[in-house]
């Protein structure tokens, strides 16, 4: 990639209203000075806070029982143990700190699963910045614990009711706020999406995942992984855990998308019952960059679907789209039922309750461990506490083979 042009092959760019362009140029400048050139010791400050406030480095755990089951060595990168319970803090802390260095006075963010909103709210409380988070009405309903956490950290949560009320609508709404208040406000975008410099900058804040994992797996396994497997929504944990392995051509990189209930799309309804953008999307322009998107033939953006709110997005990061086109990244997908199965598998075999997003990656390893080589690095992008209600309901409604007897649990209120 070239940070000068903001292009990844044909993807990337800056497709935003004119009112935002000066802010984006200002951000480009700040990204180059503080992040790339460590001006005023910004990156040192960032790393120190990631350690002391965030709890980095996160462990790389050899997953003994998964390894026995799959007959290969599975290592879990435990981003679920990062403060806040997901990889999102790496980016949120980086951006809020950068906004502070830039002299901005107000932070806005969008959130899907609520993890990014939570991470941004925490970073703002930590750094003393006012914070407003836009969240789709539907996502508010399915991720209530995170809504409460944001409030506890002093953030305002603004419900977005247009469309289906998910991440896509929340991003549009946050862009509108930004266009109105651009002079003193920074928009902390939650993934490697949006106009340049966001995709590159967010990747650089998330890169710490693979910097650590690369060292850790060398130490523990005595080699680089044969494959790295992680979930992809917008693609921030994905690019974070891939970044330092991209040049290691022998390391397979697997981006696991949400297959939802089906890969077929309903063009008539404008609905894709999945969020598998890399696998089924086409080139388009959404939320500030040219990338792969779920759209109909006219270019109207489709409503996406996933059982996990954090993957439920019709776009994907431009760099990930480019790496996939070039064959460096393999885009795969897992449907809702398999993801729930992966959720229960990791909970039962390792005592790690993963986010439903991360459960997609677990499910992919479950089904394809034969093809992944001897040493598999599985990124657990977040923990599942936020998803417990959803899992209770969804497991109850479906036939998930390895689920505990949740029907009795649900019926008796726990007195089984």
């Amino acid at each position, binding site marked *: 990639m070239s940070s000068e042009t903001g292009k990844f092959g044909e993807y990337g760019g800056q*497709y935003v209203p*004119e009112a935002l362009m000066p*802010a984006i140029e200002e951000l480009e400048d700040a990204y180059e000075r503080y992040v790339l050139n460590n001006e005023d010791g910004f990156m040192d400050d960032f790393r120190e806070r990631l350690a002391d406030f965030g709890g980095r480095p996160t462990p790389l755990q050899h997953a003994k029982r998964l390894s026995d089951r799959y007959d290969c060595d599975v290592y879990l990168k435990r981003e679920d143990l990062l403060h806040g319970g997901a990889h999102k803090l790496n980016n949120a802390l980086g951006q809020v700190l950068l906004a502070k260095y830039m002299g901005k006075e107000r932070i806005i963010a969008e959130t899907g699963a609520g993890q990014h909103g939570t991470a941004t709210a925490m970073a703002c409380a930590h750094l003393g910045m006012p914070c407003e988070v836009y969240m789709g009405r539907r996502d508010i309903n399915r991720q209530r614990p995170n809504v409460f956490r944001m409030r506890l950290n002093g953030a305002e949560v603004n419900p977005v009711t247009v469309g289906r009320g998910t991440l896509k609508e929340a991003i549009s709404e946050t862009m509108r706020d930004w266009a109105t208040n651009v002079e003193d406000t920074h928009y902390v975008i939650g993934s490697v999406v949006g106009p340049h410099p966001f995709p590159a900058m967010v990747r650089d804040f998330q890169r710490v995942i693979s910097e650590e994992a690369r060292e850790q797996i060398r130490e523990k396994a005595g080699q680089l992984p044969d494959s790295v497997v992680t979930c992809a929504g917008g693609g921030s944990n994905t690019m974070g855990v891939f970044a330092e392995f991209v040049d290691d051509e022998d390391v397979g990189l697997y981006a696991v998308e949400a297959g939802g209930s089906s890969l077929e799309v309903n063009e008539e309804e404008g609905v894709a019952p999945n969020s598998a953008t890399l696998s089924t999307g086409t080139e*388009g322009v959404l939320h500030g960059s040219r990338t792969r998107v779920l759209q109909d033939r006219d270019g109207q953006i489709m409503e996406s679907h996933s059982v996990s709110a954090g993957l439920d997005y019709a776009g994907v990061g431009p760099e990930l789209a480019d790496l996939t086109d070039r064959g460096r990244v393999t885009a795969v997908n897992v449907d809702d039922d398999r993801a729930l199965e992966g959720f229960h598998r990791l909970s039962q075999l390792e005592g790690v309750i993963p986010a439903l997003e991360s459960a997609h990656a677990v499910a992919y390893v479950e089904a394809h461990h034969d093809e992944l080589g001897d040493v598999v690095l599985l990124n657990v992008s977040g923990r599942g506490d936020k998803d417990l209600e959803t899992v209770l309901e969804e497991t109850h409604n479906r036939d998930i083979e390895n689920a505990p007897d949740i029907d009795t649990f649900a019926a008796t209120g726990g007195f089984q």
Partner: protein
Amino acid sequence: MSRISAAFEDGPAFIPYLAAGDPNYEASLSYVEALERGGADVIELGLPFSEPIAEGPTIQSAIVRSLEGGMTPTRFFEFVEDLDVDVPLVCMTYYNLIYQFGDDEERGPEAFVRRAAEVGIDGFVVPDLPAEEADPLREACDAHDCELIFIVAPTTKGERLERIMSQVSGYVYVQARLGTTGARTDLSDQTDASLERIAEWDVPKAVGFGISSGDHAQRVIEAGADGVIVGSALVDIVAQGVERGDPPVTVANRLESKARELKEGALRGAPSDEQPHPERT
């Protein structure tokens, strides 16, 4: 001289906006025609996109109504063909629809502009396409004698102004204040500052975002603008009609008289021949 430039020849231009197909195809045709009767000099027609990030709630709702009524780019071009108006037409849309337009043989700006020119579109405003990314569309516009209109925001300064000046044609869309579209009752001094920054530009200046009355229109022209662009205040009339279940002809009449009020306001703001306006000499 292009049809759009000609529209600025005889005093201040009134440029209304409506989302094509809001709330349905037939009614919308009559609404656009009513704007011309009310005195429109150029009409901006919205081709609705599902993620209108530069739009406020009023126009966003219009876009939702239009999309739900089955509006597509193909239908939009039929709509323009079916329209019975003589004033120049500007298509306002988002880049993804332009980028995707066409069939498996040919997609993108060239196919889009060719078709638009064929049905009688004279220019384009694409709010999510900054000058940096506009070359492909610019080339297509040049090839088909269409204008490419750019927005100058209150935040646009320095080098960005130069870049836009070198790209813009037809008129420059001066964004009256920060934010998204939407009718307001106040008018910001950001307008004056923005107009001042581009005073030397050799292209008509039309001010939009937030103008909702004849008095506003008058003040904008008095401040030195060559035209006023009005969207949300007109879309509001359509929305009210939908809400109250009014017959389309009633709504069309209201649009026509609102248009007349705005046009007359703009005319009042124009310097009279005897007394040249100080800021325009």
